[in-house]
């Protein structure tokens, strides 16, 4: 199987005395759904930001599609951003434009695509996400579920191969959660590589091929197949997940 991401001894700390991630080592394979399970504050979001090249590790290396992403040059970064989409935990962070249409058009426009092509891409995405009626609405007037849909649409518009999703089900009502499960399942069936950080065990059970478990010391406790991890109640209890 092709390796999409490879983390080698990655450590990171926001403040030197308090590590946020300690010595992380694992790989992500093409087309798999990898769930990063961990309690609040275990370093899941930090790990995803490192994988998206938004922050640089204090030590170690991260390879995406066989190349290090630590010092990307312009062309390499362009290719990387086209292939990898990142959904932030807080949708308000991600929705910074003044209307939904502009929000979804943002990524393809920044990547230099032709405005006419961008318009048709945005229209298709709005239709496929069932949010065409929201296109002129400002993001702050949307409900939590609608914001999450728009945020996901804003990264799916460029059709990335890999999706890094940070706590996607957080704060969603049952209907929106159901919609998201279905959407993630469709993406998985389309062959997208999904890396999802969560503490939602139901999501892990329904989507995961493999699971990386993080402990409260900000390091990786275990990596394994979905069933092996989710049936190990002692492990889940030790890392504060049940």
């Amino acid at each position, binding site marked *: 199987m092709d390796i999409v991401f490879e983390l080698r001894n990655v450590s990171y700390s926001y403040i030197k005395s308090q590590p946020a991630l300690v010595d992380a080592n694992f790989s992500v394979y093409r087309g798999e759904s990898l769930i990063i399970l961990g309690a609040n504050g275990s370093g899941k979001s930090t790990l995803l*930001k490192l994988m*998206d090249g*938004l*922050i640089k590790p204090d030590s170690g290396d991260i390879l995406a599609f066989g190349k290090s992403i630590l010092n990307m040059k*312009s062309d390499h970064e*362009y290719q990387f*951003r*086209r292939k990898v*989409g*990142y959904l*932030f935990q*807080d949708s*308000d*962070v*991600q*929705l*910074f*434009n*003044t*209307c939904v249409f*502009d929000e979804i*058009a*943002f*990524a393809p*426009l*920044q*990547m*230099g695509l032709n*405005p006419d092509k*961008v*318009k048709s891409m945005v229209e298709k995405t709005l239709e496929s996400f069932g949010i065409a009626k929201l296109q002129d609405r*400002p*993001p*702050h007037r949307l409900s939590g579920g609608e914001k999450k849909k728009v945020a996901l649409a*804003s*990264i799916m518009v460029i059709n990335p191969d890999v999706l890094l999703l940070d706590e996607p089900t957080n704060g969603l009502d049952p209907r929106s959660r159901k919609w998201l499960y279905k959407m993630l399942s469709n993406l998985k069936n389309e062959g997208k590589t999904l890396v999802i950080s969560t503490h939602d065990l139901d999501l892990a059970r329904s989507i995961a091929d493999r699971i990386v478990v993080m402990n409260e010391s900000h390091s990786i406790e275990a990596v394994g197949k979905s069933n092996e991890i989710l049936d190990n109640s002692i492990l889940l209890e030790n890392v504060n997940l049940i």
Partner: protein
Amino acid sequence: MSNFIEKTVFSIQSTFQDMFESDEIASKRGLMQSLDTRVRLVSILILIILCNLSSSWQFLCLMIVYSIFVAVLSKVPIKSYVFRVSSVSVVFTGIVLIPSLFNIVKPGNPLIYIGRNLYITTNGAISASIFIMRSFVSLSFIYILILSTKWVEILKAFRYFKLPKIFSATLDISFRYITLFLDVASNMFLARKSRNVGKSKDKSERRFVASSMGNLLIRSEHLSSEVYSAMISRGYKGEYKTISDFKFGIFDVVWILFNISFFTATFLAKGGKLWI
């Protein structure tokens, strides 16, 4: 200071309400709403320049009627329009202009005597009235523009006229996040109110306001770095690219032709004296 928190929460909510209402009006079918945003922006600017160039009270009276007419046709709520515009132009501008009414600042023929050597002059009264009328008309047009146009459209028009992108992007993002911070601030005040019994001391109120400001500042710093990351993640490289989809239509042509004919006619009346 006693119901300082209630007042603050109320003001925050009313700001939200205003924003909501302005978008509602911008979505109505009215005169201004049917025009291309670029035409709207430029024509409002020209109308403001025209009225500020004139020192004729007849022309300014005509402009007041014209602005009210435009407001009615653009479905701007007339009561709040007249109240808001007049309160700023008449009350605030009026207060600033009080000294210029008197013979000490503006010598001229006496109109009303206040004391033996102090009186309001005719010249002073006329200049003050003209100034207030100019301010009323200018504010009216700005008010009509803001209510009849969505903020996002105004920003797009700015971009079309080559306003530096970094400036328009900053405005764009500020507008987006000001609502989020208003929401956060409103919740902070409500959380405090929910735990507050009886009357608080002024000192503790001040301390709360100062700490809330600090808290918001820290949150805004964190949020700005997160938003920047979200932009980078979606391919932002320092230049904010957008789509502009303006359409110049028949309404715009009619509006432009009407205004040119109207102002040419007012200029030609009395051989151009009406403007001066």
